[in-house]
């Protein structure tokens, strides 16, 4: 029981689930020992297998030969990380070109946005039993290239080989990363707590709150931006105001605390803030991890319209999704001059994550989302019609 209560106290939601926190895991490892021999360990609800891999590593160091097996029923979760990882790697590359993050190396920013266990960079490399090297390379239009190389044994960001950084940082790339979990409602006190490293949140969460707090962009608002702001105000039925560290939706009913709003509304309100304060201007980049998360499906069309409008304003948008409605909304709302590229991430025969690109929704292949619907449809037809004998 002594393990359970601290776990509850320190277990933070991360991308919609509760991974085993570092403190609890460390206590579990302390309690485990074996004097050699062969072991098989099973985690019946392993998620992405992080804790399981740690336990295996610990037992191997104790001298045992260990076979680790894990079960994860949520296939989507097992797949989830891929798109998010790409978004974070790209976001980190953008973030280090602007503001206070300019002081950070790409490696440090990578570590902070991914937040691996004990801050060990090597944990970002692909997991396998033998030694493995990892390389992240980002190229931008114009040819500038930034890369970071490390192995699964690399611990500190300082030990990561980063190339191309000085040239990369010469031109700024303003960006914002909207994580799956909406954070504005939790803004009060969050930045101070995060600064003291008392909470296990990836840096994308503190970054987005900081951007939301930026003051309104001075000067006249051009008509395209104003149109977008007006459309968003209509969708959220008001404007966002900040009092100290608290955000409110201001409308005819008065000032509504963010904690009283539906999470989808808060996300739209965040986008309104980012447009209003000039974070999302032409030439900037928006990373949005699963816009559909906690969103009323009826609002999906409006969210997609906002994303398309941002693109028309010159904002480059990267988003990840597992949602059919969101994808279909893009397909239906896309206009002739809109530029959308779909990247389908999948594991090839060797188990490596690879991608296929398409400029049309119908060209997305493999399309795990559509396949899921096809499977549902097949089963619905079988249930509805049964076996038809002629």
């Amino acid at each position: 029981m002594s393990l359970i209560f601290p776990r509850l106290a320190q277990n933070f939601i991360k991308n919609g689930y509760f991974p085993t926190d570092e403190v609890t895991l460390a206590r579990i490892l302390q309690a485990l020992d074996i004097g050699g021999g062969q072991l098989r360990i099973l985690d019946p609800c392993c998620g992405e297998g992080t804790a399981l891999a740690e336990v295996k590593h610990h037992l191997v160091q104790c001298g045992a030969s260990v076979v680790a097996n894990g079960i994860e029923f949520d296939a989507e979760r097992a797949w989830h990380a891929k798109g998010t990882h790409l978004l974070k790697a790209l976001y980190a590359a953008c973030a280090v070109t602007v503001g206070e993050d300019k002081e950070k190396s790409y490696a440090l920013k990578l570590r902070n946005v991914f937040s691996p266990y004990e801050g060990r960079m090597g944990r970002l490399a692909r997991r396998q039993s033998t030694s493995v090297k990892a390389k992240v390379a980002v190229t931008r239009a114009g040819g500038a290239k930034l890369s970071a190389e490390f192995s699964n044994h690399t611990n500190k960001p300082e030990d990561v080989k980063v190339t191309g950084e000085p040239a990369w940082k010469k031109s700024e790339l303003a960006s914002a990363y909207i994580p799956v979990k909406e954070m504005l409602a939790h803004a009060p006190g969050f930045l101070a707590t995060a600064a003291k490293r008392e909470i296990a949140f990836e840096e994308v969460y503190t970054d987005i709150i900081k951007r939301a707090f930026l003051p309104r962009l001075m000067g006249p608002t051009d008509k395209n931006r104003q149109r977008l702001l007006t459309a968003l105000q209509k969708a959220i039925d008001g404007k966002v105001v900040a009092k100290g560290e608290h955000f409110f939706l201001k409308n005819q009913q008065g000032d509504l605390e963010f904690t009283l709003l539906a999470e989808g509304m808060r996300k739209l309100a965040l986008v309104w803030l980012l447009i209003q304060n000039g974070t999302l201007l032409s030439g900037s980049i928006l990373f949005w991890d699963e816009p559909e998360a906690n969103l009323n499906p009826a609002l999906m069309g409006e969210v997609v319209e906002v994303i398309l409008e941002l693109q028309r304003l010159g904002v480059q948008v990267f988003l990840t999704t597992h949602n059919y409605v969101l994808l279909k909304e893009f397909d239906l709302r896309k206009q002739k001059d809109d530029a959308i590229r779909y990247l389908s991430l999948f594991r090839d025969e060797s188990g490596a994550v690879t991608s296929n690109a398409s400029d049309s929704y119908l060209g997305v292949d493999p399309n795990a989302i559509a396949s899921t619907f096809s499977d549902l449809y097949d089963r619905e037809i079988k249930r509805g019609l049964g076996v038809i004998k002629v």
Partner: protein
Amino acid sequence: MTVLAEDDLQIVLPAGVVGRKFDDETSHGLSHCMKAVDFIVELEDRVLFIEFKDPENPNALQKDSAAFIKKFLGGQLDTDLKTKYRDSWLYEWAEGRAKKPIYYLVLIGSSALSDADLLARTDSLNRQIPVVGPGGGSWKKPFVAGCAVMNLATWNKTLPHIPASRVGL
């Protein structure tokens, strides 16, 4: 072997299976007040009410096809599909022919619809007819055994013995 065709869509019934065009003004006789599904096919253990919709008919204008798909995806055709089934069922029942379980099959001649779209429309039709009775339970005397909205590919996968195709191909 019987071929049931409506404009450019057709299904071929295997030998021994009886099917007839139902939405026929002359033989139906009540089309001024009752809607009708296109065909009724009788199998050994069931009856199939079949309705064709063909937005990709070669004679259709592209803008009409697009408008149809939009209406179809938006559920605006659900009422029409529902009424056709209910009126046809009532007609058959009143004529003393509704003795076997009846299944409602809607064939949409469109390659643009995804399985997700077809699933959504099948769900909607199930709700509209409705397949389940009051309180979500079964009807004491069910008037529909099941329904499905299919395109040509799904139809041929589900009913390989009653193949559907375009007349012009």
